[in-house]
């Protein structure tokens, strides 16, 4: 079984909408592999080219640079092609059509190539080696060779499905695999243990980041059935992070499993004194006088590898802990939330903060808590289900984030833009306007909230009413009415209306409304005044 066959299997996985069929196809492939290749294939399927902690760190510029070197196509043509395709790996594969030597590619050879590229000292070396790989193998294999580098195969294959396929291929239950993966957080290592039938020996490893558990957004409290089943916390507007600490060593990981340790020395100092080894989930916050500062303040710290003393004094950062992942060599995600919370409180080092949490008593309390959270400068609320476990990488029903719509407006679409990825050829991003007499003035832009089916229909309608085109953007006649919700209004020079909606999202397509029935600029002005409070 080769990388070529992996690429072919991935094509079939992409072609089937059935979850079970995806898993079965993949398991059929993985089941034929020996240990080393099972580990490699699992790594590739989860978007990791290199063994261990190493990152390939090749950006789109390098991937394109190698394509220019390999094919001679100019950057303008490549950009245009990418715009139509919406995926770097696929674009590169298509542009290599009948230009390669079509050599067979083994899973091991792919790893050697990745390592070779990784070992290139200068950027030009890495690009030259990458170009060599492009020209060596079948275009379909190169497509996936590149997709692995970009970290996302984009074939409708979440890690959960790969997990199930590894389970099926090695004769385990999905539950056994998942449990082990919760401890380790790296599926390739779990696959190795599964192959050796040593899943029971898999232990949590500190200093290896675990996938974060995610919260599902809800707009309104009535989405919760039984208030008494929930715990409530503030939702912070900081940097979601894990701190791993033990024996004087501290590592901080942010979303995307990036290590950001050196940017936050004061947090390291706090955790360096941790008496037992711990890994905690929480939020890095710029914090002064008992409250979190605006995220834009915190951003100044994020880009820095080394932090000056001035900046440390100006933007002090704390770690607001809210969950426990490891304790003293044991993984804790399988413990119920109350127990994790109890252990977290007891092992929190001095200088770190514990996110206040309390039981929810009634639906009405969601409203009052939300207002208070906002008054404290936080973004909203998190509701966490009593008795729930920590589910790494999952956006399920056990954590909910309450983001409140500040108000809604009926608006009309004035421009539409092509989306990305699987929405690449559809018009999925809409600029919208309110009415001011006979004029329509833009107030924002949104892309989420509609189903693929609705977007497909709208794409047809909007193409038909387009009157001008600039690159990806089409100006359309103001005909399609949407209802949008948003978190606030601010003054903005970006739009002609002079206002911009914050975090607008599409609530529904109002096919029952005409453009002359939408909200007016006066209405927006009134909402803005009201928001000043």
């Amino acid at each position, binding site marked *: 079984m080769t990388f070529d066959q992996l690429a072919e299997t991935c094509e079939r996985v992409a072609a089937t909408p059935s979850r079970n069929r995806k898993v079965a196809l993949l398991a059929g492939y993985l089941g034929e592999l020996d240990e080393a290749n099972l580990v490699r294939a699992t790594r590739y399927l989860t978007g990791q080219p290199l063994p261990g902690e190493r990152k390939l760190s090749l950006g789109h510029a390098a991937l394109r640079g190698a394509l220019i070197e390999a094919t001679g*196509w100019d950057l303008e043509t490549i950009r245009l092609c990418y715009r*139509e395709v919406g995926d770097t790996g696929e*674009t590169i594969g298509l*542009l290599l*059509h009948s230009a390669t030597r079509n050599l067979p590619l083994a899973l091991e050879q792919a790893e050697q190539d990745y390592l070779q590229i990784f070992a290139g000292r200068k950027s030009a070396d890495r690009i030259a080696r990458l170009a060599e790989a492009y020209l060596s193998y079948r275009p379909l294999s190169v497509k996936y060779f590149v997709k692995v580098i970009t970290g996302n195969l984009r074939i409708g294959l979440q890690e959960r499905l790969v997990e199930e396929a590894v389970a099926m291929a090695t004769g385990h239950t999905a539950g056994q695999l998942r449990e082990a993966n919760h401890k380790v957080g790296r599926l390739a290592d779990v696959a190795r243990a599964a192959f050796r039938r040593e899943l029971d020996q898999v232990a949590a490893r500190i200093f290896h980041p675990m996938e974060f558990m995610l919260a599902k957004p809800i707009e309104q409290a009535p989405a919760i059935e039984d208030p008494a089943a929930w715990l409530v916390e503030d939702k912070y507007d900081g940097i979601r992070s894990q701190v791993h600490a033990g024996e004087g060593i501290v590592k901080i990981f942010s979303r995307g499993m990036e290590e950001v340790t050196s940017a936050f020395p004061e947090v390291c100092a706090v955790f360096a004194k941790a008496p037992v080894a711990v890994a905690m989930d929480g939020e890095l916050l710029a914090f002064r006088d008992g409250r979190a500062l605006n995220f834009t303040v915190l951003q100044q710290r994020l880009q820095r590898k080394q932090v000056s003393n001035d900046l440390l004094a100006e933007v002090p950062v704390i770690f607001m802990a809210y969950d426990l992942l490891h304790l003293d060599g044991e993984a804790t995600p399988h413990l119920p939330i109350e127990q994790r919370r109890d252990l977290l409180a007891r092992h929190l080092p001095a200088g770190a903060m514990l996110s206040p949490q309390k039981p929810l008593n009634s639906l009405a309390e969601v409203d009052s808590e939300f207002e208070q959270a906002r008054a404290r400068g936080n973004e909203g609320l998190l509701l966490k289900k009593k008795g729930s476990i920590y589910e790494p990488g999952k956006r399920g029903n056990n954590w909910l984030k309450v983001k409140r719509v500040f108000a809604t407006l009926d608006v009309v679409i004035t421009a539409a833009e092509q989306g990305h990825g*699987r929405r690449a050829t559809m018009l999925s991003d809409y600029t919208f306007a309110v009415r001011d007499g006979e004029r329509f003035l833009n107030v924002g832009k949104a892309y989420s909230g509609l189903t693929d089916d609705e977007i497909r229909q709208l794409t047809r309608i909007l193409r038909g009413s387009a009157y001008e085109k600039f690159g990806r953007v089409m100006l359309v006649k103001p005909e399609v009415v949407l209802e949008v919700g948003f978190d606030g209004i601010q003054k903005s020079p970006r739009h002609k209306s002079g206002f911009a909606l914050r975090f607008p999202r599409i609530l529904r397509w109002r096919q029952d409304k005409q453009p002359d029935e939408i909200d007016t600029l006066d209405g927006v002005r009134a909402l803005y005044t009201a928001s000043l409070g």
Partner: protein
Amino acid sequence: MPPPLSIRFSPEGIYLPEIDLWLDPRRPVAHAWFSHAHSDHASGRPTLVLATERTLELYRLRWPESTDVVQTLEPLRFGVPVEWKGATLTAWPAGHIVGAAQLCIEADGYRVVYTGDIKLNPPICGITTTVVQCNRLIVESTFGLPIYHFLDQTEARRRILQFAQETLAESATPVFLGYPLGRGQEIAHVLATAGIPTSVHGAMHKFLPIYEAEGYAFPGVEAYSAKNGRERALVVVPGMRDYLEARGDVRVAYVSGWAALANARTRANAHELIPYSDHADFSELLDLVAGTGAEQVDIVHGYAEPLARILRDRGYNAQAAIAQMERLEEGEA
């Protein structure tokens, strides 16, 4: 000395003033050449229409004789020159759909070829393109980017049949979506001649006699109705999709040039992508341009600007003839 034929491009069509002839006009004119019978090329009621016989038959099905406008339809036979206002006009096969033709216009030994919509590789239904030597070429570029690579007709047939057979074997209904003229008949021909019971949409069914006159068989093909839609392959227009899905387990194949890109799966909401087209893919376009030996190339429809640039990089005198809003009309690609 300037060439004896000049060409004017406008959103209303292509016009040759010296011989007072419009090519695929989009407004009422006196004299028109229709390259093929798709509605974005053959529409309206010119007083005189030049086209191949099949194209004229297909055009008449859509634009029946009218008492208000008296029209003369003048059939051209492939390879047979006719005199026209001091020039010679010759139709040559374009492979795109049944009846599709290129027009070669010659005056004082100077030749202009207008391809209309064209496919270079042999089509499933239609006559394989003749590459015509010329001085100036007017060519389309629907798929004029190097990402478009299509299956040849043998492989396309295999994939169409495989999808239909596998889907029927799982007791689901294979559905092929297509515009009324061209692709639909090709798919129905492939399915029916392989013995797969097939129903086609009424809008496609009405063109079958013309395809049959051209020598393509459709054994057992019926016009779709709610009664004969079970255990058969269906070839229908995209608008019927929701209705069919509501009636049972359907799986949709998208046979199109756009199916060369994975995002067509979401865009067409298709289970199976079969990248086969009645247009030339990128390498066919390059081969066609090179084969004609044209000194000057004008590009219309599609990726005109980028293809013109790519051709200029290869030493051609090429320009985008119409600054069109790309893809606003997807045509009958």
